[in-house]
């Protein structure tokens, strides 16, 4: 499957559109031309081809008339199905929202619309963003376009990571130029690492949560998933901004992220937190991490060993806080106002039938855990203690950032695993071991593809920066990207 237009990055396509080399309609059509050969990947829950062509034509018309253009005018993107889109089914990957057609547009999708982008469809995801493999979706799992070249998993279907797996695979397979993701504990960064793309989770408060189906309100953040760091900067600029409809949105200017990414890392202090290792983590990830540090040193940064002593508690903390919030956030799915209803002989029975049938196993598990840790007698021991440990984790970062400008870590403890890998819940949760700490502290993080595993699968490195300092993070990411010279192979297609 070779399609020249879809090989372009957002930045290149922007230039091509502005030079008149091709139209937004052609660009959009060429994205849609990739679908047939990629059915197996199961990218979209809902495709919106008519809307996409309509938006592309509108962009072409704006350009032809010389009207003001947005920063992503005519760029086709995939929208994670967690974002509510006006008049278009929005499911959050759940049976319980099947057929739900919002009468409103989320701030993020609206911002991207206002920037001129073209929406191709609503991408697949773990149900309510709960998962690390896009295997909990009611609409079937998404497949990673990558396959291992050797080793025990060679030739097998791999998970794209999760929860933003549809978006990640779409970008990696060059079926769109960029995609939105959301990241609660690593749902942008881990799939980015698994699929060899760039995934950026902004500072909590940078992107509005309004209209985005809530998983864990104190952690959820939207962010871009793209093939290059520059594209991530462009797309973040289009998504970010203060929103008065979200009380946790930060009233802060959105800087020109793209403007600084070439500035390099000379003089920056980069911290290497010693706690970011995991039991059974392959040596190749440790050595990639060291290689990454070497590149930054070579580019003029100072590498500093640092310690974040409470790191090991981040994951268990997350698995109390996030389910607790989710148990409450998901209470609104009750079969009354939208989505699925399964009748019963009483109100309670209707609730219980609807929620038993509407929620998948993992969602039920987390809702039950969340209910338990908030219930009388357990609140102090679990929820309150977790929120105190969360303070400790955030303090670790604050302290370290007095000394360094940015932190470098692996993104995930392994490359992509097979779709049929059997894992108990806790083993699955360990996928997010390196991404969760920054989420708990509300810090920005980015995963940049940095190399391949011995079996030829992509591996990402993560950068974590101070609150609202995405600029330093992007500058550093650009250096990693440049030195790594990572080459995303052209996806050869896999039909269903």
């Amino acid at each position, binding site marked *: 499957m070779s399609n020249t237009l879809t090989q372009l990055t957002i930045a290149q396509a922007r230039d091509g559109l502005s030079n008149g080399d091709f139209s937004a309609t052609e660009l959009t059509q060429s994205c849609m031309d990739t679908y047939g050969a990629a059915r197996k990947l199961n990218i979209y829950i809902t495709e919106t081809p008519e809307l996409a062509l309509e938006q592309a034509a509108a962009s072409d018309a704006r350009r032809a008339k010389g009207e003001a253009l947005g920063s992503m005018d005519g760029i086709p993107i995939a929208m994670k199905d967690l974002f509510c889109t006006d008049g278009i089914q929005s499911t959050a990957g759940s049976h319980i929202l099947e057929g739900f057609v919002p009468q409103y547009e989320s701030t993020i999708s609206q911002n991207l619309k206002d920037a001129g982008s073209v929406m191709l469809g609503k991408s697949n995801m773990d149900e309510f963003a709960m998962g690390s493999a896009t295997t909990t979706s009611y609409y079937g799992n998404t497949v990673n376009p990558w396959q291992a070249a050797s080793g025990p998993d060679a030739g097998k279907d791999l998970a794209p990571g999760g929860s933003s797996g549809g978006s990640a695979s779409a970008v990696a397979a060059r079926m769109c130029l960029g995609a939105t993701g959301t990241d609660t504990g690593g749902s942008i960064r881990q799939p980015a690492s698994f699929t060899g793309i760039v995934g950026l989770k902004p500072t909590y408060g940078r992107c509005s949560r309004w209209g985005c189906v809530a998983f864990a309100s104190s952690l959820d953040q939207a962010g871009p998933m793209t093939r290059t760091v520059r594209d991530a900067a462009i797309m973040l600029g289009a998504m970010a901004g203060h929103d008065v409809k979200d009380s946790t949105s930060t009233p802060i200017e959105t800087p020109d992220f793209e403007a600084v990414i070439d500035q390099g890392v000379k003089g920056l202090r980069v911290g290497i937190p010693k706690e970011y290792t995991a039991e059974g983590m392959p040596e190749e990830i440790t050595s990639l991490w060291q290689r990454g540090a070497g590149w930054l040193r070579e580019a003029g940064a100072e590498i500093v060993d640092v310690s974040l002593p409470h790191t090991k508690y981040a994951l268990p903390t997350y698995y109390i806080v996030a389910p607790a919030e989710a148990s409450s956030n998901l209470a609104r799915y009750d079969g009354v106002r939208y989505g699925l209803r399964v009748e019963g002989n009483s109100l309670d029975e209707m609730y219980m039938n609807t*929620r038993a049938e509407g929620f998948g196993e993992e969602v039920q598990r987390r809702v039950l855990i969340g209910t338990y840790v908030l219930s009388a007698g357990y609140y102090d021991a679990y929820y309150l203690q977790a929120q105190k440990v969360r303070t400790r984790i955030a303090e670790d970062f604050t302290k370290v950032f007095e000394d360094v400008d940015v932190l470098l870590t692996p993104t995930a403890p392994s490359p992509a695993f097979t779709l049929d890998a059997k894992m108990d819940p806790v083993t699955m949760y360990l996928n997010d071991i390196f991404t969760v700490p920054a989420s708990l502290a509300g810090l920005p993080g980015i995963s940049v593809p940095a190399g391949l595993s011995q079996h030829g699968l992509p591996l990402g490195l993560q950068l974590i920066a101070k609150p609202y300092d995405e600029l330093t993070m992007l500058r550093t990411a650009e250096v990693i990207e440049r030195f790594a010279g990572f080459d995303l192979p052209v996806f050869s297609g896999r039909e269903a």
Partner: protein
Amino acid sequence: MSLDRETVRRIAYLARIRVDEDRLDKIAGELDGILDWVEQLSEVDTDGVEPMTSVTELTSPHRVDVVTDGQCPDKVLANGFDTFDGFFTVPKVVE
């Protein structure tokens, strides 16, 4: 700490998720596994530590008291199940 069937039943009722009897043990086992694992948080010394209730240091922004919304029953009811005469409906409740 180990969850018994009765506790699972109680939590499932609080969460309004029907759990069939034959699944109680399996779920109890899974929840137990997760709870055993998060148990390690009790090791952390949190004396005098404030719980983190919000990520940002900011305080809640305020809205001025004017009517800016509503008057959109069509939108509100658009996805409703078995709506009647402008009302949502649920199985009859006996108080």
